[in-house]
């Protein structure tokens, strides 16, 4: 038997206080959450198990990590029982909180490189702190592209941010349907229609992507055809999770646990298994 590890019970949650509830779109909202923990150590791409007793828990990534105010923002799409219960909460409410879990984005791989960020729908949420990091440390990177695809213009998240970001990085937007005008330039089509805007040779770029798996599959295939190495593409995956600590088995893909080995994977490292749809 392995030696005893004096950690507490990792399945027992802490309490976190909700500071604010913001409706982002028709079916997406953000909870500003302050966890009651001493060690505020969260990285972009990691997640926490958030829930309510009686309803259960689900994994949510962070769309803002603010160590100064010790605040996290979870941007959540309304789907499922746990989220239904969470969406009814407002400031002052309490949720159960366990985390952080998972590896997070390998930000260190971006230094000195051109950076391509591809987001689809709610997949923008875990990439938002990556963009914050890129812009705060702008001089450390080459060209930076954000490709962001949504279903309709109303589904665009963080449009104020997008406008601000476009001052320092290339922000390129697409929507499956473009029926009305938008403050921001949006092209009609899937996110891959934007790839003709890539100016730099792709061999020196690192890609981070999060979104529907079908989007990540085609976006990655597209980039690889344009010369990018598959090993420079990182995908963030979503699975249902019950524990977050590599024990309940639900998030397993081949030999990997999305909760512990992921949720961010180097593409070829996860593609080799069955049932990835990548």
């Amino acid at each position, binding site marked *: *038997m*392995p030696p*005893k*590890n004096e*950690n*507490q*019970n*990792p*399945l*027992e*949650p802490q*309490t976190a206080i909700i500071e604010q509830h913001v409706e982002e779109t028709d079916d997406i909202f953000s909870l500003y959450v302050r966890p009651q923990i001493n060690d505020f150590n969260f990285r972009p791409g990691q997640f926490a198990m958030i829930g309510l*007793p*009686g*309803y*259960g*828990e689900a994994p949510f990534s962070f769309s803002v990590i603010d160590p100064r105010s010790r605040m996290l923002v979870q941007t959540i*799409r309304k*789907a*499922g029982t746990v989220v239904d219960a969470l969406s009814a909460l407002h400031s002052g409410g*309490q949720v159960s909180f366990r985390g952080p879990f998972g590896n997070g984005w390998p930000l260190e791989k971006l230094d000195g490189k051109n950076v391509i960020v591809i987001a689809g729908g709610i997949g923008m949420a875990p990439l938002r702190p990556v963009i914050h990091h890129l812009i705060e440390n702008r001089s450390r990177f080459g060209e930076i592209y954000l490709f962001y695809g949504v279903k309709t213009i109303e589904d665009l998240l963080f449009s104020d941010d997008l406008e601000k970001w476009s001052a320092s990085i290339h922000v390129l937007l697409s929507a499956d349907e473009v029926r009305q005008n938008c403050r921001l330039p949006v092209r009609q089509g899937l996110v891959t229609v934007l790839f003709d805007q890539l100016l730099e040779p792709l061999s020196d770029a690192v890609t981070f992507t999060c979104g*529907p798996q079908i989007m990540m599959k085609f976006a990655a295939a597209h980039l690889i055809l344009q010369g990018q190495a598959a090993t420079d593409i990182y995908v963030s995956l*979503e*699975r*249902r999770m*019950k*524990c977050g*600590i*590599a*024990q*309940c*088995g*639900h998030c*397993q*893909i*081949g*030999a990997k646990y999305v909760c*512990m080995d992921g949720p961010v994977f180097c593409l070829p490292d996860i593609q*080799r*298994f*069955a*049932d*990835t*749809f990548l």
Partner: protein
Amino acid sequence: MSEAYLLSRKRLPDWIKSLAEIYTVLGPVPLRRGQTVFEPIASADLLNPNYCSTMLSPRLFIYPGCQKLFTVNRSTGQYVTADPRTQRPQLIFAIHPCDMHAISVLDRTFLAKYEDYYYRKRRDDTVTIVLNCNKACDSGFCDSMGTGPFLRLKQGFDVALTAREKDFIAEPASENGERLIGGRDFFERATAADLGEKEEIEQRAKRSFTKHLDTDGLPQLLMRHLDHTVYRRTADSRCLGCTNCTMVCPTCYCYNVQDRTGYDLMTTTRQRYWDSCQELHFAQVHGGNFRSSREARMRQFVTHKLATWVEQYGCFGCIGCGRCMTWCPTGIDLTEMAKEIQRDAAEK
């Protein structure tokens, strides 16, 4: 490491009796319909040390099928952790080597980077006395998987027993094991000749196997043939999706979590229960399911036990007990699937 002892068969009841004073002794008891089941025993009368295999392995004493995690008082938000321990410490008597290996396999999941509070407490509170198998059981292939018929673990258990005609050879493997034997006058020291005979019994036991699986290079082979037609053919024609295979598998660890709130709406209890990758809901996510076909779920079972487990935990997830095929209503045999893939690869 330590001495070996002899316990005459006549004195076995005395030993069990003295153990039962300290522990809840869980031993193989022949019950209805010829099924042997691990149950608490107070004396050796009911004990059936010649049992072949049980339906459920003794994993359920360490990792129960349904386990309370904590309760929450919904008005104060106060959490009370459930104590997973049993009233008295438990002792599993005559656990077979494959099942003992299976517990050591579970240790790699539950006592890893994150340690499961509940599993650790039960594991620490459980004494294990292994009984080596003198002959192969009906559908066992533990010899091929390196988990039997004689125990190959060096630690993680307390005593190993080998049955002979008139006595048992008892080899303690932990301080606890030494304590269970030491100071009891019915144990004698074993001689080198006794241990020599143990070797012979082991060799005889190894020769009694009719079922084999060649595991050399098997994980790599299975990963190269994820699209092999055997999964689809077997799944579509024979798999009922009943999840028996995963319920009886002694290394399966997946669980689901459920919250139950009392009728007064004041207390919520969170509990976990065994879940199965053979259930459709298992790989469900919002907007889809990653293993919606029975073929994909079948492949998940076979490749996890015989391939990806090795990358995850450094050992096979299959301990060769044969339960999954014994309790499959249509007799699906994962070794047959593996062998078909091996045959096809050899022909190419």
